[in-house]
């Protein structure tokens, strides 16, 4: 191994808190990163991985121990400018790292700080924008870009400083699948072609598949280190560290449990399909529909009739947000809504509880037209509970119990009724009423705060629950807990509407799907029919569940008939493939 470009030696770090015991975020980390390496650091929320990342470019300095970047100790303030132009860093939130109001000027911010001559800045800005494919957007205002595009701008801003190392601190956590793939592709290309060392911090193991080295953090320490295959096959240990293998690996593992001779270590789709081909026994098999629909089609309770809406209406900046939207929600179903960022799906769902009222067409909720003056929108909002993206950002009370009680208190219920509703709502999301109601809201973990926010809507005891990206930004453990609750409510016959980018989740949950693109509904149907149209989904910037992709590969290889494309659920796939290998 050549001389490391970054070296950490017994690094400890603690966050001081006034009046309380300090938090030990790092408890003795030793790490050396070689030039040109692609390292992925995995860990659940609170594992210390982001604290570690901020040590790599002197944003944080160890409490004890040392960090060297190209031989410079990060304690040496005089070297911070050199250290930070050597180690670039891209953060999680696309919005909070853009300084300027024009893309190209934001990219120029770093080189300006380095005091480079004007001509050199221009050259670097051109080059950096080209590297991330954002040249056509150079004169745009950043707030008009999608999350994935903003992250590309952030990467360009770092590249313009010509760093030798690029640290991606959960840079993909808030992005949709296409945005995430784009960022990962850029990171890999920069690593291969420009020789830039990449350190990517994430809680998603699928992002670690193509890395040179994977490091798993927990409890402020490095728990596991090695090539992706070495790390991913330590199943029991990973599970104890709250890490979830990628869907492909989970499928391989499940097949391995079923047929012990089948290797359970596939990391990518290609590897899994190759293994399946190798062990294929191909006995003929009768195809059922893959899933019997437990939900009888209930009455339609929300109808959209040719709905259209403008943004910035009656101004020179007017744009059409959605148009000709026709859809309906039936009682007792779990309805999935999928579409890429900016397709208009959040605007559509906000019509369901009269937050937005249509400019064209009409929306009827429980037979009431939301545009009708006589309709009491507060009643509609109570009957259709809407949970926003990152709802934990709207919490405001000091204590958990008070925050959940906000809605019921607005209804003018008695103290006992409010208390009973808060208890039911908290227990529905798996928060113990006695244990959590007096906890400080802002001391909770991200997953717990999300569940408090969810309880706040459930406490209104709505007839329909609509959720906008309920799992986005959570770590795998938080996601799984939430999915378990949704699954339980679905099976209890609740009516649920769910916007999600996560096709693997929807494959397990949804009874019916709407596909939204360019502000309108382009397809409707049951998941088997929708997911089978893989090419069409991909053309709209979406993807299919991992299971469907495996099926597609097997159909294309001629091993399975085309009907197999309708299989999208994990257990169905394991049951089918287990018989064929």
């Amino acid at each position, binding site marked *: 191994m050549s001389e490391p470009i970054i070296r950490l030696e017994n690094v400890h770090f603690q966050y001081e808190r006034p009046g309380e015991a300090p938090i030990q975020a790092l408890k003795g980390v030793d790490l050396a990163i070689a030039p040109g390496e692609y390292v992925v650091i995995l860990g659940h929320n609170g594992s210390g991985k982001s604290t570690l990342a901020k040590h790599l470019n002197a*944003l944080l300095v160890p409490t004890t121990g040392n960090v060297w970047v190209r031989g410079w100790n990060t304690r040496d303030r005089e070297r911070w400018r050199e250290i930070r132009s050597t180690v670039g860093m891209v953060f999680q939130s696309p919005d909070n790292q*853009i300084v300027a109001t024009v893309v190209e000027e934001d990219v120029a911010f770093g080189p300006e700080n*380095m005091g480079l001559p004007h001509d050199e800045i221009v050259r670097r800005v051109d080059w950096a924008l080209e590297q991330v494919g954002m040249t056509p957007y150079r004169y745009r205002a950043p707030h008009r870009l999608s999350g994935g595009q903003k992250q590309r701008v952030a990467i360009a801003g770092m590249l313009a400083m010509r760093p030798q190392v690029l640290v991606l601190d959960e840079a993909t956590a808030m992005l949709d699948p296409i945005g995430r793939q784009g960022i990962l592709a850029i990171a890999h290309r920069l690593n291969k072609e420009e020789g830039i060392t990449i350190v990517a911090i994430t809680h998603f193991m699928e992002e670690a598949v193509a890395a040179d080295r994977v490091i798993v953090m927990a409890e402020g320490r490095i728990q596991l280190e090695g090539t992706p295959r070495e790390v991913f096959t330590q199943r029991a240990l990973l599970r104890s560290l709250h890490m979830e293998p990628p869907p492909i690996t989970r499928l391989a593992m499940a097949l391995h449990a079923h047929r012990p001779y089948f290797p359970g270590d596939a990391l990518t789709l290609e590897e899994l399909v190759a293994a399946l081909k190798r062990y294929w026994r191909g006995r003929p098999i009768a195809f059922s529909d893959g899933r019997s629909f437990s939900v009888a089609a209930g009455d339609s309770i929300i109808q959209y009739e040719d709905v259209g809406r403008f943004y*910035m209406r009656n101004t020179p900046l007017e744009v059409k947000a959605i148009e000709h939207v026709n859809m309906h929600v039936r009682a007792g179903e779990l309805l999935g809504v999928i579409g890429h960022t900016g397709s208009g799906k959040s605007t559509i769902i906000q019509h369901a509880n009269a937050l937005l009222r249509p400019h064209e067409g009409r929306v009827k909720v429980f037979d009431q037209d939301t545009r009708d003056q006589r309709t009491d929108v507060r009643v509609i909002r109570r009957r259709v509970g809407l949970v*926003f993206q990152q709802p934990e950002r709207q919490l405001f009370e000091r204590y958990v119990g008070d925050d959940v009680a906000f809605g019921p208190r607005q209804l003018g219920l008695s103290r006992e009724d409010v208390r009973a509703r808060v208890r039911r709502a908290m227990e529905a999301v798996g928060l113990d009423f006695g244990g959590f109601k007096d906890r400080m809201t802002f001391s909770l973990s991200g997953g717990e705060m999300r569940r408090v926010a969810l309880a706040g809507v459930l406490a209104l005891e709505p007839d329909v629950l609509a959720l906008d990206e309920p799992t986005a930004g959570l770590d795998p453990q938080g996601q799984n807990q939430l999915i378990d609750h949704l699954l339980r409510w679905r099976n209890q016959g609740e009516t649920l509407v769910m916007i999600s980018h996560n096709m693997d989740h929807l494959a397990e949950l949804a009874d019916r799907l709407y596909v939204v693109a360019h502000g309108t509904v382009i397809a409707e149907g049951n998941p088997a029919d929708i997911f089978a149209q893989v090419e069409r989904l991909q053309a709209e910037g979406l993807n299919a569940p991992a299971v469907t992709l495996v099926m597609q590969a097997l159909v294309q290889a001629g091993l399975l008939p085309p009907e197999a494309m309708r299989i999208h659920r994990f257990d169905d796939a394991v049951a089918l493939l287990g018989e064929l290998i």
Partner: protein
Amino acid sequence: MEDFELLRNVTIGQYIPTNSFIHQLDPRAKLLAAGCLILAISFTPSILANFLMMLVILGIAWLARIPFSYLLRGFLLGLPVLIFIFVTQFLFMGRIEPSGHVFFEWGWFRITQRSLYIMALSGLRLISFVFLTSLITMTATTTELTHGVEHLLRPFHRFGVPAHELALILMVALRFVPTLAEEMEDIMKAQASRGADIGGRRMWRPDKAAKAYLPLIVPLFLNAFRRAEELVYAMEARGYVGGGGRTHFIQLQSHSVDYLVVALAFLIMLFMFFFPWPSLYATLF
């Protein structure tokens, strides 16, 4: 509060890209010219003169191809302030400025020629100011403005004016206006979904309104502080250590038309200052 769209009614700070010749001016020229016009409006105590200035400003809007209706929308936003000033002046100006012919008197309340004159004048001036500031932000991007301010202030650096820091503060503030407005929209919608009576009747009672705004203000501030903290990390990670030793990507270039526009504005100002306007009241009656 039509459906929680906050940005729709804020015309100050909204760039309208019609690409007119006004848009293409050097931002320094725009700022200097606007400064001259503001001085002219502020120091010319004649209604006729201010009426002419209003026509000049509408002429600029026409040249910039800004729809008049859109300009008016920003004015409507400032209407409560205007009405407040108008009512206060109506009630008290007669006593403060007792000179001139008295039209009406009842107890301490009095309407005089002079008080009517002042009300008309300040109304005209305020509307002109709102139109002019809206026009600046509609024809210049926020970046142009920040660069304009920074360049104009740079000569004063030696007197301790932190030109770069001021410009950076302005830039970051403007950069986060749409972000925070969107955030506020989301918070309002989310709390309304939880049963909050946002924009309802109780908002008019100060005691109730304060409590009703708490669910909006607390998350907005918490999120703004979190953004600020992340922004500091992001700026430090890009090597920002203050204005010293920085270079500039954007280099402003002025053309002869820019000088011409500033000269014209300056001449208008001089004209307004020195033209023998008819005596104070003649213009009103």
